[in-house]
């Protein structure tokens, strides 16, 4: 078999994986980590979350080496369990993943409405939210792809910028670690609790797996994910600690949804504010764009597989993009964004995304174990060392983190209760029941209809007309 004319390099796999994780909402999630713990020590939980995500990435690496395809997530759940389970979990993961856009668009709108005043705060946010989502929907409809080189530039510039700003902050501000470790909030329990939220900082790194089809060596995807998590760990650990240090007590207590913009202003005045706004827009657009690209392709494939109504497999007559899937997901993103705007509960979505990631890491680890038992002799380009140790550890730890998220109470910096997190579990559970009902009731109906259509169709291959 020949080799592809164009293949992705490790550099681009790392930048794509890391680029999907870097978003505007990460700064707020970082501050949430700092709030649960002690700000100056936030890096401990961030590194811990990174290490745990690194272990989970080993599971994705082994699974990708078995199923190096864009349909990977559905495929390995299907082979490990069954098709119905893969549909339930696949849809749960994809649709709930889009919910994160609610938080992302709200936060980006907060960034922009605070700088460019058009009407009043509410309508400005509404305007920017819609503008952001519609822009990304338009980019996806037109089939404009971010090239590998562009992704490299965007990600590495963002990472380099964050590290440089962190170093500058540490050089100009005092960070008193000795005092921080004496704080009563610095306990093992709060370190672990903050790490649970810290998982959010890495959300989406695994979405690089569909790029396996564009590589020569499937192990590159695994390597890329691990390097990306390493890069993100260092960058976030430095930046979140620096940002906390660079904000005043009043600013932290104010509960701003845009701490990085305030931080940029504190450091460099207007130039800092403008630069951070630019970085925010880049981070939001690239991560949502990749997210919509992946989820719309997934929905398209589900439509072609008669799991979703056939309308989802419609392609744009000019750009060959799955326009129905893109518009549906865009509308869903707008609906969630509006709900976020009206309720102001963006933190709710951030926690839901963190819990969803914990859930999917557990599923990936379970798949590794099941597939090793079912197909022990299948050759894997990458196999996690130490037998079942890592997958079992991932299952235990991420189940614990997920329960930890649900059991906690979200508070602002001043310690006031915002909401009880079990509501996150209630919403996720309700959605899981809906997807299960869909898979049990609707999917068999759609499959039956497709089967009837297929049977009614005369086979074209000579000698198969009566088949």
């Amino acid at each position, binding site marked *: *078999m*020949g*080799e*592809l*004319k*164009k293949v992705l390099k490790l550099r681009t796999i790392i930048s794509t994986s890391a680029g999907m994780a870097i978003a505007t909402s990460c700064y707020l999630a970082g501050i949430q980590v700092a709030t649960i713990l002690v700000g100056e020590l936030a890096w401990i939980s961030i590194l811990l979350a990174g290490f745990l995500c690194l272990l989970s990435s080993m599971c994705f690496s082994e699974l990708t080496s078995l*199923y*190096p*395809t*864009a*349909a990977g997530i*559905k*495929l390995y759940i*299907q*082979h490990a369990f069954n098709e119905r389970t893969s549909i339930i979990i696949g849809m749960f993961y994809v649709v709930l993943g889009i919910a994160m856009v609610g938080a992302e668009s709200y936060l980006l709108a907060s960034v922009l409405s605070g700088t460019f005043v058009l009407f009043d705060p509410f309508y400005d946010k509404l305007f920017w939210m819609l503008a952001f989502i519609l822009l990304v929907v338009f980019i996806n409809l037109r*089939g404009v*792809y971010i090239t590998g080189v562009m992704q490299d530039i965007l990600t590495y510039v963002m990472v380099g910028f964050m590290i440089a700003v962190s170093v500058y902050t540490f050089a100009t501000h005092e960070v008193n670690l000795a005092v921080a470790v004496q704080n009563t909030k610095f306990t093992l329990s709060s370190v672990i609790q903050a790490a649970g939220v810290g998982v959010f900082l890495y959300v989406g790194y695994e979405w690089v797996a*569909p*790029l396996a*089809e*564009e590589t020569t060596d499937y192990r590159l995807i695994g390597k890329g994910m691990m390097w990306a998590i390493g890069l993100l760990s260092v960058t976030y650990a430095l930046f979140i600690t620096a940002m906390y240090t660079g904000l005043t007590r009043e600013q932290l207590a104010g509960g701003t949804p845009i701490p990085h913009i305030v931080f940029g202003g504190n450091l460099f005045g207007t130039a800092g504010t403008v630069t951070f706004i630019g970085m925010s827009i880049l981070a939001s657009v690239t991560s949502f764009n990749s997210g919509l*690209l992946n989820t719309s*392709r997934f929905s*398209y*494939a589900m439509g*072609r*597989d*008669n799991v979703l109504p056939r309308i989802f*497999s419609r*392609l*744009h*007559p*000019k*750009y*060959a*993009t*799955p326009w129905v899937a893109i518009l549906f997901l865009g509308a869903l993103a707008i609906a969630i964004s509006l709900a976020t705007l009206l309720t102001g509960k963006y933190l709710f979505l951030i926690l839901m995304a963190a819990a969803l990631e914990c859930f999917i890491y557990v599923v990936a680890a379970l798949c590794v174990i099941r597939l090793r038992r079912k197909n022990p002799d299948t050759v894997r380009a990458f196999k996690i060392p130490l037998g079942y140790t890592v997958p079992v550890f991932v299952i235990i730890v991420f189940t614990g983190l997920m329960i930890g998220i649900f059991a906690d109470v979200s508070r602002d910096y001043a310690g006031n209760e915002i909401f009880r997190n079990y509501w996150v579990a209630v919403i996720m559970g309700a959605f899981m029941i809906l997807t299960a009902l869909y898979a049990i009731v609707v999917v068999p109906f759609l499959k039956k209809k497709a089967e009837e*259509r*297929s049977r*009614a*169709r005369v*086979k*074209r*291959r*000579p000698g*198969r007309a009566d*088949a």
Partner: protein
Amino acid sequence: MATSQEILEALADYQVQCNENKRLRKMQRDWSKLLHFTADDTKDEFTMDVVKGEIVSFRAGAEGAPDIIVSAKSEDLCDMFWGDLNPSQKYLQGEIRVKASQEDVVRLDAITMIIWPDA
């Protein structure tokens, strides 16, 4: 198992169906790719040249550096070219494997979907 000759006959029909479909030609007007198809069971290989959405040639053997590589059982390849098989379903089952960018995977599937929507 489908023979190399059977697959070539299927490819000939596929070429006619694709090139005569105006909707498909419009959609794929900017799509120029070199494709390789590999039958896993018989090890037969085929090359297809698409220029601006038109299949200009196909032949047995793998020639040139491809943009897209499709691997499947010979029977599945044959059925796919005759339009008797939904390639997306086989792809989601892992029975058809594609090495290409995500955009090209969708564009490849679009051919079957537009010519034979009920496949």
